[in-house]
């Protein structure tokens, strides 16, 4: 199977879906001439022309709204945010327009559109450029929120997101773009809302998504050296959330750690813990623990940033704690 980067996987998904359906267009800052701020849209301008690959001014609220309008009357926009930090300027269109349109119009106007871009922290980008928004977005009924962690999932899920007749927020990762993985030549689409068991074990379940999938897998590898076997469950989508997959794994291992990039309070992990206590109460052998960013804006200094971020050692420590190996 070919091994490609996460970036190339997204590029393939965009290209294939644009070939398949000429209502699909890509719009955002630097997507065309510059070939994408992170080169995700490389070559698309050349293949599809400037009507379908559209550079915008720095006008997030404006072009997100252009996407909503175009979707109302039958196009299928893919709106790229250079990063999700800048989507805050557009959040009115995402939340007040796209998410509610179907409901508010009594089912007349669905929103077949995708909002996508890198989410979360990269390296030393400081407070305004290092934020993971999935828990915010997941809070909103009327949206789907997809957070792929591997090239395979990124491609299959982006294709599904573009074909979905609902608004989908698709959260990538700057630090993921260069990561590599197997992606088949044959076409495939991954259904939105299905988790994926990335590693099988029977001692503890690591529940995670997005960039933290790689962290959880590395932690699981290291723990395996001590004979600790982890289920690594990649949610892939945080809204809707695959509660059945969570319950199935936790009922098997009886212990769970949730790993996410964002902050603790009202985070995705808080929701997972709620499901677990409701559906697996009698199966739990230890309180569920969470690994997440420190409860502070992201600092610039290298040592502080490292201390703030969830990582492999913090994940291992949490796993050992739920196994009562350490206290």
């Amino acid at each position: 199977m070919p091994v490609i980067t996460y970036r190339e996987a997204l590029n393939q998904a965009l290209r294939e879906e644009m070939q398949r359906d000429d209502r699909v267009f890509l719009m955002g800052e630097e997507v065309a001439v510059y070939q994408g701020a992170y080169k995700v849209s490389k070559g698309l301008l050349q293949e599809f022309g400037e009507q379908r690959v559209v550079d915008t001014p720095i006008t997030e609220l404006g072009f997100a709204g252009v996407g909503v309008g175009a979707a109302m009357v039958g196009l299928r926009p893919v709106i790229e945010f250079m990063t999700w930090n800048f989507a805050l300027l557009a959040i009115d269109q995402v939340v007040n327009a796209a998410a509610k349109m179907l409901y508010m119009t009594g089912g007349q106007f669905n929103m077949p559109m995708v909002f996508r871009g890198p989410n979360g922290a990269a390296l030393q980008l400081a407070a305004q450029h290092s934020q993971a928004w999935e828990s915010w977005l997941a809070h909103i009924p009327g949206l789907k929120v997809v957070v792929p962690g591997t090239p395979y999932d990124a491609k299959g899920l982006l294709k599904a997101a573009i074909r979905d007749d609902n608004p989908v927020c698709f959260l990538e990762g700057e630090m993921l773009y260069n990561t590599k993985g197997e992606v088949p030549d044959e076409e495939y689409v991954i259904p939105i809302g299905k988790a994926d068991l990335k590693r099988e074990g029977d001692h503890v379940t690591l529940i995670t998504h997005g960039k933290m999938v790689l962290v959880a897998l590395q932690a699981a590898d290291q723990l395996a050296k001590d004979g600790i076997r982890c289920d690594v469950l990649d949610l892939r989508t945080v809204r809707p959330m695959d509660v059945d997959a969570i319950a199935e794994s936790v009922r098997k291992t009886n212990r769970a750690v949730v790993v996410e990039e964002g902050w603790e309070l009202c985070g995705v992990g808080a929701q997972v813990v709620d499901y677990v206590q409701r559906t697996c109460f009698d199966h739990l052998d230890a309180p569920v623990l969470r690994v997440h960013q420190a409860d502070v804006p992201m600092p610039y200094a290298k040592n502080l940033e490292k201390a703030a971020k969830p990582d492999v050692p913090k994940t291992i420590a949490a796993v050992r704690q739920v196994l009562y190996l350490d206290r």
Partner: protein
Amino acid sequence: MTTTKSTRRRGAAATAPAESAATPAASTAPAPSPADRRALHRELLYSMLLQRRFEERTAEMYAIGRIGGFCHLYIGQEAVSTGIISQLRPDDYIITTYRDHGQALARGMAPNALMAELFGRIDGCVRGKGGSMHLFDKALGFLGGHGIVGGHIPIAAGVGFAIKYRGGDQVIVCFMGEAAVNNGAFHEALNMAGLWKLPCLFVIENNRYGMGTAVERASAINDIYKRGASYDMPREMVDGQDVFAVRDAAGRAIARARTESMPTLLEIRTYRFMGHSMSDAVSGTYRTKEELESYLKRDPIALLKSRMEEDGDLTEADWTTMDDEIKAIVQGSIDFAENSPEPPIEALFEDVLVDTTSD
């Protein structure tokens, strides 16, 4: 706006000068004595050269990993920061974007504190919390260092509001790139500033590009200063490679803000000699090498230097002395930053909230 506390400008006629696309030939102030002129021009040169040399070394430090994250150099635009800021009083305010090293230095931020911040060290101007994009210094009235395009423009209007509210005669200068004017925040802020006559000077540094997008590919009109008309705001286009032109325009605008509480929009045409940030090539996808080279011929520092030489205000020896002095200061800032400790881990949880109230 109605404010009960305003003690100045009452009844001041809102004399909005005509729109001007060219910089008027000379200011109306009496000509300074040759000695004063020489001193002033040397100050301007010193300010610009400090920015240049500091950032040349910044690029080096970035390349060897001492500096991380996003880092946007100002090289080529130094006449803008120096020209504007040299007209300010110490109690005035400045707010700017992530491309903030030049303005911070022009305002008098210590090179040591700036370099230590870029290194992410405890002696940095914000204790290593912000890095390149988030320089702040309360004592200098330097209100940042903001990373979200357009986000700081309404904040400038807020500072203007507070100045007027308190009845002061300070001014806030808001620097921004030309691409920021397409953002909603720009229009909202300028409308309020125009409506409420806030003492704001909005300085658009038109360096032709917002990242890889040329101004004519992003803005419905290319003469950006004309946008001031929408807010009934005095406006001018200025040659940003000529520090005197910038200074003159700034002087007019600042006087208007101080005495009449009238905001101004200046479009200053300049060019960035480096890539958008350290991860962007200097030329290639969006601008040609030829274009870059043609702009390099109007290096603001070289222009000032030759003007001073013509005036007999600068010898080659003067230049070398100044340059050596500045290089030593910059080297000193690197040594200082190298020796400054990383912030202690406890600092991670400091400064999220204060625990005081106005009780």
